């Protein structure tokens, strides 16, 4: 096996603020191979964006303390000097941001923003860069690119702007494309177009893609592997099929069961995850998910779970203190429509109640 294109090892990112230290990313490891798509799923504040911004050195000036390694093509992006990193950013690794309106400069024509990306990394003539810009717009499916290249961002619709962003990211044929919530600001029909475009581009250009999103539906269709993040950590990592077919972490169950879906009966009750995401300054003790977990035991409040392989399921890792058999039984129950309130008995029965906890309230916890 050759080295993966990108290997993140025990990455930690902390920010000092007036209120205390924010542990935005707390020891995550994953790798991405050329030609593969990895999805990073999490809610706001789970550290999913910070981890990829760090990859491009974009957290360096924010006073972040960064530990760990990010090996990209034989170089460590954490320790790489700024000027070296600048040669990689936008060239070998490119990024697409969530909001295509604020990511494009309103004063400059789309064409000049595209050629800027080319000139930054390539020594080419103006006309060659312009030709390349037209070619790129054509590549991402913008009709009439020769005319559109001289237009301003406000003359493009939301979906078209996102296509321009993608064109810009592809300008230098990156080996790795990071898409941070690429479709969140878009309507469903446009979202479907953009996802199809990303999928198509990958099969033609063969790059690696990291898709960061909060929407499991989006990643189900285009990823090979998914990492679920919670409170700065990866709590579950598995091939896409396994995440949806045999998820292991109670948080992943929660995510899957709390969204209404078109392919389940309409009156199926939603099972919300109680409480709300924790503060990254004062994190819960033990397993960070324990205050919201319906299957919590006393021990879980003290022991911090590590991401460990799931026995009998290659490539699947989970950070959960419940034993694997019990997890499988609970998921089977959930999948057949039982609720966490009834399944909680499985946990209580198993370790003979020290203290049986009342089923958690469905409402959120107290603020602050």
């Amino acid at each position: 096996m050759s080295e993966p294109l990108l290997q993140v090892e025990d990455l930690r990112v902390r920010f000092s603020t007036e209120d205390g230290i924010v542990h935005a990313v707390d020891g995550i490891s994953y790798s991405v191979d050329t030609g593969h798509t990895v999805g990073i799923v999490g809610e706001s504040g789970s550290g999913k964006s910070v981890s990829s911004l760090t990859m491009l050195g974009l957290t360096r000036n924010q006073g972040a303390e960064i530990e760990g390694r990010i090996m990209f093509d034989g170089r460590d992006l954490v320790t790489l000097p700024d000027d070296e990193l600048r040669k990689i950013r936008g060239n070998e690794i490119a990024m697409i941001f969530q909001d295509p309106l604020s990511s494009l400069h309103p004063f400059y024509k789309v064409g000049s923003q595209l050629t800027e990306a080319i000139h930054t990394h390539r020594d080419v003539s103006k006309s060659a860069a312009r030709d390349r810009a037209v070619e790129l717009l054509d590549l991402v499916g913008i009709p009439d690119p020769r005319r559109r290249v001289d237009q301003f961002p406000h003359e493009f619709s939301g979906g078209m702007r996102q296509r321009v962003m993608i064109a810009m990211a592809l300008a230098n044929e990156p080996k790795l494309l990071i898409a941070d919530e690429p479709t969140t600001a878009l309507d469903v029909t446009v979202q479907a177009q953009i996802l199809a475009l990303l999928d198509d581009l990958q099969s033609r250009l063969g790059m690696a893609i990291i898709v960061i999103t909060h929407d499991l539906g989006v990643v189900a269709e285009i990823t090979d592997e998914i990492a679920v993040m919670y409170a700065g950590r990866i709590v579950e990592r598995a091939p896409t099929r396994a995440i949806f077919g045999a998820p292991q972490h109670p948080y992943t169950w929660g995510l899957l069961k709390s969204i209404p879906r078109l392919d389940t009966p309409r009156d199926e009750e939603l099972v919300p995850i109680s409480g709300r995401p924790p503060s990254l300054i004062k994190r819960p003790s033990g397993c960070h998910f324990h205050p919201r977990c319906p299957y919590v035991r006393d021990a879980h409040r003290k022991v911090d779970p590590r991401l460990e392989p799931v026995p009998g399921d290659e490539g699947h890792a989970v950070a959960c203190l419940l034993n694997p058999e019990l997890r499988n039984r609970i998921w089977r129950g959930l999948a057949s429509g039982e609720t966490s309130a009834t399944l909680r008995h499985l946990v209580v029965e198993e370790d003979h109640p020290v203290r049986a906890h009342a089923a958690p309230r469905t409402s959120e916890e107290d603020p602050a």
Partner: protein
Amino acid sequence: MSTSNGTLLEVKDLVKHFPITRGIVFQRQIGAVKAVDGISFDVKRGETLGIVGETGCGKSTTARLLVRLLDRTSGSILFEGEDIGAHKKDNLKGLHREMQMVFQDPYSSLNPRKTVGSIIAEPFAIHGLLKGSGERRKRVQELMDRVGLNPEHYNRYPHEFSGGQRQRIGVARAIALEPKLLVADEPVSALDVSIQAQVLNLLRGLQREMGLTLIFIAHDLSVVRHMCDRVAVMYLGKIVEIAPSDVLYSFPRHPYTGALLAAVPVPNPTGERRRKRELLTGDVPSPANPPQACRFHTRCPKAQELCGQDEPLLGLKGTTSEAACHFPLTESEVRLRLPAALAGAAAGNSRGEVSGQPSSSST
């Protein structure tokens, strides 16, 4: 489903045009954004009507017209038989005891300088109800408890609450006067995934207990399906299809509804992955200058010459769904376009009558 058959709200040919003007001193109108352009529907007591559509289709404008935050250009809104569109501005108090609204953004819809207690008590103050402060406080705390907030947080300010909790405050304020109709405009789209379900369940629970009639507006088709008895699909200021949820989602008749459904990503990688779907091309045209006749004909995969000449009217296609289309989708087309998973769910969920004739009678 509706408990009694009475119609609570009846909307007829509702139109809202926002003028586009030019000039500073002598303003003249050079056009209009046709945000809502002649829509009609009715809402039965106790029912949930969903309105879906993409950005700019006029769904939020519709919500604001219904609760009179905007004035209609023409058409009528009959609430319990009375045309509320004709009410004078200073005569809306009574109306707002009957209908309330929950807004999308829980951050900007609560006054940051007021305590939660006084935000929720404001409807009582406006309407001069529960004058004794102890009485009012007790009622507010009951409401807080009802929506899942800790009543002890009566004196806290909105910034001390998370997004989901703020949305609960908004809901508590909206149900304070026990309105008959609640209009919820994208109530969960600003919330995190794990919090959305909490608010959706809250709304459903309240509706069941209080017998509320709910108009639920969202762009997320899965959420709307989960919440609503009937769904209206809007495109460029028009309703293109309206049908019971089960029917709409298993057998959409309008090609736009079909396209919307096909575009929803389904979190089920087996079978779904890289499925070839028919994607709509292009973007929604400008509502200031919508296409002639059928507004969807410029993007419609089934469009024919007729569609650009003659506007189709909303009419019964099949037994229960109404669609505004000359050439509605046939059963085989639906099967082809929509993911197998969806068809499976429809088969398992036989509450809706999916008895569409394979070929349709276009009017």
